[in-house]
């Protein structure tokens, strides 16, 4: 028995591999935030006038707001004046035209992360937008996507090239008044990805953005906007890492998805920000607002997330099911170890008729970590025949961690069927014994059990990402997922 406990301990104590720093010449703003900083930011990015107005409006609203305190996480107050709001690798005029013009150091960094920006590489089926600190440094396969009519570019580029789309959709799902971090993001967001899938187009390849925080004392405020027009179909992947530092860094992103009639958006995240060291020092504060609006009939949005990094994760990818027959899905694996804290879950707001939602959340808590599922299922009166199924399972590894489940269910429509189930357990001695008795080593047994525990979520991930997700989980629970 104690032998297997030792095995488990070994499994969960592994180092963060993406913690390197890339030495670069950068353009970085001095720390501090006021209207002048926003003006400068907007100018550096060469944005249209309406965007600056939007930012200032958001900033003024943000100043009236207070940092929320309701989540099940503990952290010292953040000094927003001590953060630099813009940092970018120095570059030539007008930005790189091709991969050859990108700073080789940056390319090297991505290569090290296993995300080759070279289009001929292994992940050839995936178009990647690489965001390095505050700017997008490269987007691959632009030409091929253009042929299909798909727009996939950094949001700062979309602001210049497609202002009408931005004007129409930006802030329409997450308004700048939504919450403290969304307001801050609206004021200072620097880059992110923009995707537009025109009518009836099925995106020919997976789209992906890789976010990298590199510079110290900065925050990353990215903004992602994905629009799938009538009958459009897109699968989008997001990955993120950061260097190991003793200070906490803030990552406050906003993601907005809009699915029109018959459109489908699949959004997958493998979040692996630096989680802090074993004593809980350093790490990223991942305070993110993600929301999808299923506007059209028969639209569908599916969120899949694998959360292994960050000192604190605080996010609730949500679906507003406005269109009749629309579907929302949420599949999540959240793994916390050492002193990590996660307060994550989803909101499913049923507005249209015959809307359905599925929530599968798997929380794994190890070390001294706290892992919380918090979710809301709300069925409005208009949502006839709405259907929800929720399943939240927590797995505890170690006796000093915590796992919590806080679901909220609000139903105003009698024809709705809402189910919620939650369980909390640990890997039992019986299960381990059974596996070992059949000839598996303790490590393989734990691996198998954890893998089985997460299987429902992993099978929702796109092929390319499933590989990475398993590798990441392996990072935190050494090789236990295979």
């Amino acid at each position: 028995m104690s032998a297997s406990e030792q095995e488990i301990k070994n499994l969960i104590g592994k180092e963060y591999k993406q913690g390197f720093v890339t030495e670069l010449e950068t353009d970085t703003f001095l720390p501090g935030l006021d209207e002048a900083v926003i003006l400068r930011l907007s100018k550096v990015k060469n944005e249209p006038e309406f965007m600056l107005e939007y930012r200032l409006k958001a900033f003024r609203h943000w100043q009236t707001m207070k940092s929320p305190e309701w989540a099940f996480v503990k952290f010292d107050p953040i000094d927003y004046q001590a953060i630099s709001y813009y940092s970018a690798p120095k570059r030539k005029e007008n930005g790189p035209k091709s991969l050859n013009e990108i700073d080789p150091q940056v390319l090297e960094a991505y290569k090290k992360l296993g995300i080759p920006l070279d289009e001929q590489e292994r992940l050839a089926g995936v178009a990647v937008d690489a965001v390095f600190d505050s700017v997008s440094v490269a987007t691959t396969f632009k030409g091929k996507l253009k042929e299909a009519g798909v727009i996939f570019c950094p949001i700062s580029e979309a602001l210049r090239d497609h202002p009408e789309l931005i004007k129409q959709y930006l802030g329409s799902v997450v308004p700048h008044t939504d919450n403290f971090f969304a307001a801050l993001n609206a004021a200072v967001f620097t880059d992110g990805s923009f995707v537009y899938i025109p009518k009836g187009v099925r995106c020919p390849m997976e789209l992906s953005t890789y976010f990298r925080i590199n510079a110290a004392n900065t925050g990353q405020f990215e903004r992602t906007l994905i629009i799938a027009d009538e009958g459009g179909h897109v699968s989008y992947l997001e990955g993120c890492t950061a260097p190991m530092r003793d200070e906490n860094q803030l990552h406050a992103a906003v993601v907005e998805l809009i699915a029109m009639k018959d459109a489908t958006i699949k959004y997958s995240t493998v979040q692996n920000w630096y989680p802090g060291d074993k004593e809980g020092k350093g790490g990223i504060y991942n305070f993110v607002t993600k929301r999808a609006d299923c506007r059209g009939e028969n639209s569908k949005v599916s969120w899949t997330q694998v959360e292994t990094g960050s000192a604190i994760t605080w996010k609730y990818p949500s679906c507003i099911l406005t269109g009749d027959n629309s579907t929302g899905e949420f599949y999540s694996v959240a793994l916390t170890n050492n002193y990590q804290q996660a307060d994550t879950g989803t909101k499913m707001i049923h507005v249209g008729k015959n809307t359905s939602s599925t929530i599968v959340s798997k929380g794994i808590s190890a070390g001294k970590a706290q892992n919380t599922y918090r979710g809301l299922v709300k069925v409005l009166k208009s949502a006839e025949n709405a259907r929800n199924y929720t399943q939240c399972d927590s797995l505890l590894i170690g006796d000093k961690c915590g796992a919590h489940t806080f679901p909220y269910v609000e139903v105003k429509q009698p024809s709705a069927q809402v189910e919620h189930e939650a369980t909390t357990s640990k890997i039992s001695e019986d299960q381990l014994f059974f596996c070992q008795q059949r000839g598996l080593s303790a490590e393989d047994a734990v691996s198998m059990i954890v893998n089985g525990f997460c299987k429902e979520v992993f099978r929702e991930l796109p092929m390319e990402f499933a590989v990475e997700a398993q590798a990441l989980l392996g990072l935190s629970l050494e090789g236990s997922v295979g």
Partner: protein
Amino acid sequence: MNTATATRYAVKYQAIASALPGQTLPWLQTLRAEALMAFSESGFPSPREEEWRYTNVSAIEKKLFSPSISLPAGSIDAQWLKSYQLQDAWVLVLVNGHFSAELSVLDDLPEAVSVMSMAEALAKQPDQVQKHLGLATAQSEHGFVAFNTAWFTDGLFVHVPAKQVLDRPIQLLHIVTDADIMSTTRNIIIVDEMAEAKVIEIFIGVYSATSSEIVADNAYLTAAVTEVYVGQNADLTLYKMQSESEKAYHFGGSYIKQARDARFTHHNFAFGGLLARSDIHADLDHASECELNGLYLGSKRQHIDNHTRINHLKPYAVSREVYKGVLDDRARGVFQGRVIVAIDAQQTDSQMNNRNLLLSDDAEADTKPQLEIYADDVKCGHGVTVGQLDEKSIFYLQSRGIDEETARNMLTFAFANEMVDKIKIKGLHDMVLEQVLTRFPQEGVNKEWL
């Protein structure tokens, strides 16, 4: 606004402050003064507080109910009262928050057992009361508890000594006779080591003493707090049936402390009141067992909130919780259930279940089950459903020649009756069943089926 309310209520209560029981006990005076201070600061809870998220009690603040100074003069129709009085039980009756010796039946009590009014206990056993008053509520302080501590007029005091098994249940009857008044009562139930008891608490407010008529729509406020102490290996079953008048406001809190191996079972039937909230908070010790059952039926514009908390503080404890709700018309049912497993409480076994049936387009169910777990070797789960009757079951009954409406009523009734059937006391079972049948949203459930 809250503070203003507190002041307004404080002014009202000054009139009876000198008549409250326990004037000669300095510790109680201090306790009341502290509670008054706490209430003045916080007022009644607001929906901004997480534990009161779905329940807005501002109507109580606006209404400004008056305390009843003493027992009402008019007599209560004994015949009417009988329908609520259990045979073969010790019965203590509180009218408008004051003990009525005339209506109570407390003969043949075993020698060492105390069943008396709180006022009497404060006079006869002040030490016992001092030891227990405010201990079980310590972790659940909010406006209503402070309000109750500051101004309780009377209540029930029960002390069952070690190894004493009571062969009859103790029944506490709360009757409120008039509109606009407030009944503020505090109970203490102590069951010592290896003793066993059953206590039934019933709230009714349909009878008017002054006009001798049955009045179903008096608007009044009940703010009752019960503190329960279950000793080592002791067994206590607490039944609560809340059948207040249609326009009444009800707050009833039960706060339980269980010792090692203690068993506690609670049955909560919430039927009446315009706005009714129950708190059931239990602290569990080593290997104690806790079972919470609840049924709430809401119709018209009723708002019924049940708030439970089970605190597993030590290893090996078991808790089971089942709450069912049937909501019709514009009624709103709220269930908030929280299970906390402390860091040392290994081998905890906890299950919670909440099921809601919505019968009309305007009914609403809000449910919030919570698991907060700090130990790793536990087995915890919860389940929630909100929905309609199973269409297949209805079809099955129809295929056997039963018309659809009857089939629906049968199934709805069966859904609720499962909780009623858990009552082990015949008289009480029939009384609760009667309440379910009269309050049943639709006609057509035939008593002969039962």
